[in-house]
């Protein structure tokens, strides 16, 4: 199990290494950078939802906290992006503790409701607190990141750096899953009572994993701000939080690779489908609608209907059945001969 996870990380690293050469085009490199941000957030969200079994439908708010903290501190106070990012992390962690304290003592989906409320509040604050957030017109002039004197000023540099962070995030998550702490989280998901009876401090551990997932989201938000260099409240609405939950669920909650592949798929799928509208026009279908959105929804629906455990586990189960069927066919005669 553990070895599989490290092999997975190896595969991701290899893919990251060759991707810019294969993609070439700056636009698609940008798409992959946005995908990296989603993968990072969803890795943290998967620890919270898939492993500890606690649902957050407002995780976009933690992304907003990171993005706005970075943007405000760097543009208005001239702080270094790294210090600002650290402040975002601390703020997001503090908010997570604040939300976790009352909700995590209770069984049931109080956290889901609290995070949803928090997401709407953050969006409203981003729109309304014009003096700080720039309101609907947002904040411009966010500086680029610098790393050991290198300015991350090309998409290739950004690509490598951002995906490097995704790999690091995956590695930390995998380490955690296979540790005492990770087993404690999975135990909480399996049965809170049984976990407590074995000495797992469920309230504290649930708050800790909420904080961890908020930190992942906040870093992803800061990285977003330093990539697009301009932020406004638009991307931080509640729908984005719902999309994050969908990514984790479509890929498969109970496996970090599920969440990862879900995030990757749903980040790339819209690009893959964007040709559809043009294609349909050549068939003289003039009715104006978002065909790509339609197909996108259809694909989600099919996955959830036929692979309810998520794309990752669903597909690996399918592959396993196919292989074992072939082995049965191939090995049938040999067994008879014995």
């Amino acid at each position: 199990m553990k070895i599989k996870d490290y092999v997975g990380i190896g595969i991701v690293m290899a893919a990251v290494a060759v991707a810019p050469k294969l993609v070439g085009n700056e636009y698609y490199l940008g798409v992959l950078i946005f995908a990296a941000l989603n993968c990072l957030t969803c890795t943290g969200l998967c620890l919270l939802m898939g492993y500890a079994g606690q649902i957050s439908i407002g995780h976009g708010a933690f992304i907003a906290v990171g993005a706005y903290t970075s943007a405000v501190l760097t543009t208005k106070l001239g702080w270094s992006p790294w210090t600002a990012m650290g402040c975002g992390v601390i703020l997001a962690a503090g908010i997570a503790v604040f939300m976790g304290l009352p909700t995590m003592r209770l069984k049931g989906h109080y956290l889901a409701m609290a995070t949803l409320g928090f997401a709407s509040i953050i969006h409203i604050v981003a729109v309304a607190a014009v003096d700080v957030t720039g309101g609907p017109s947002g904040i411009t002039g966010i500086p680029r990141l610098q790393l050991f004197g290198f300015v991350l000023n090309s998409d290739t540099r950004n690509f490598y750096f951002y995906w490097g962070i995704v790999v690091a995030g995956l590695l930390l998550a995998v380490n955690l899953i296979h540790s005492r702490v990770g087993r404690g989280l999975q135990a909480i998901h399996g049965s809170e009572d049984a976990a407590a009876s074995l000495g797992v401090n469920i309230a504290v551990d649930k708050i800790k994993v909420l904080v961890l997932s908020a930190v992942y989201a906040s870093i992803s938000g800061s990285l977003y701000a330093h990539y697009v260099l301009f932020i406004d409240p638009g991307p931080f609405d509640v729908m984005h939080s719902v999309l994050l939950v969908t990514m984790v669920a479509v890929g498969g909650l109970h496996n970090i690779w599920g969440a990862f592949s879900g995030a990757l798929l749903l980040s790339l799928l819209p690009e893959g489908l964007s040709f559809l509208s043009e294609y349909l026009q050549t068939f003289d279908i003039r009715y104006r609608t978002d065909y790509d959105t339609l197909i996108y929804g259809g694909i989600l629906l099919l996955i959830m209907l036929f692979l309810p455990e998520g794309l990752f586990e669903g597909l690996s189960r399918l592959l396993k059945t196919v292989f074992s069927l072939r082995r049965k066919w191939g090995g049938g005669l040999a067994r008879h001969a014995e």
Partner: protein
Amino acid sequence: MPNSILRLENLRKKFGGVVAVDDLNLVFNKGEVTALIGPNGAGKTTVFNLITGFVKPTAGTILFKDIRLNHKKPHAIAALGIGRTFQNVQVFSNMTVLENVMVGRHLRSRNGMLMSAFLPPMLRREENRIRASAQERLVLLGLDRYAHLPAGSLPLGNQRMLEIARALALEPTLLFLDEPASGLNARETMAMGELIHKIKSMNITVILVEHDMELVMDISDRVAVINFGRLIAQGTPKEVQLNPDVINAYLGT
């Protein structure tokens, strides 16, 4: 004179209008197997939940050695060396059999989130120790050949065994078993009886709730009978069997 390990003094629990446990006074002896019996709804599981911190007492005192357990959380009570199983089995079905037992070693190491995420090589030896001692428990309970199966895939009898293996991994001095033989067939019930003997021989005090009277009479040193949350009899299995109040309670006359 055996010395006591656990005392319940005027213990009382009300759920709304229902008095589940009513002024219960009971002393459990160290090293013995005590059975708590009584009709359905008598309050046996509630007594377990009170002692292990899952419900808070309305009144009274729970004393483990000299420690008052009244306001302690379940995880803190586990840390005192008190283990338990559940009437409706609660294995972690999302984990393998071995991982279930490894959770039982949770309190035997202290490493937190940062250490686990950033420095896993430092923890390798400890992980190996945890895995080895979990494996030992599986061998003890004859579950080792299922080690890498998902716990949810085991039949009920093995799941009950797994719950006990997990609780034993805690290295408890006091172990609560809530209906360990319920849902088991005759052969599995016999194996459960042998296991409880084995646990007793490991110097673990066992308190169990059980409806299988043959099993109770076979393995218990003492039996306490409760009905409507009240103690109606206690003594050796023989004494209790002949007690007219007990016969009444069971026949409902």
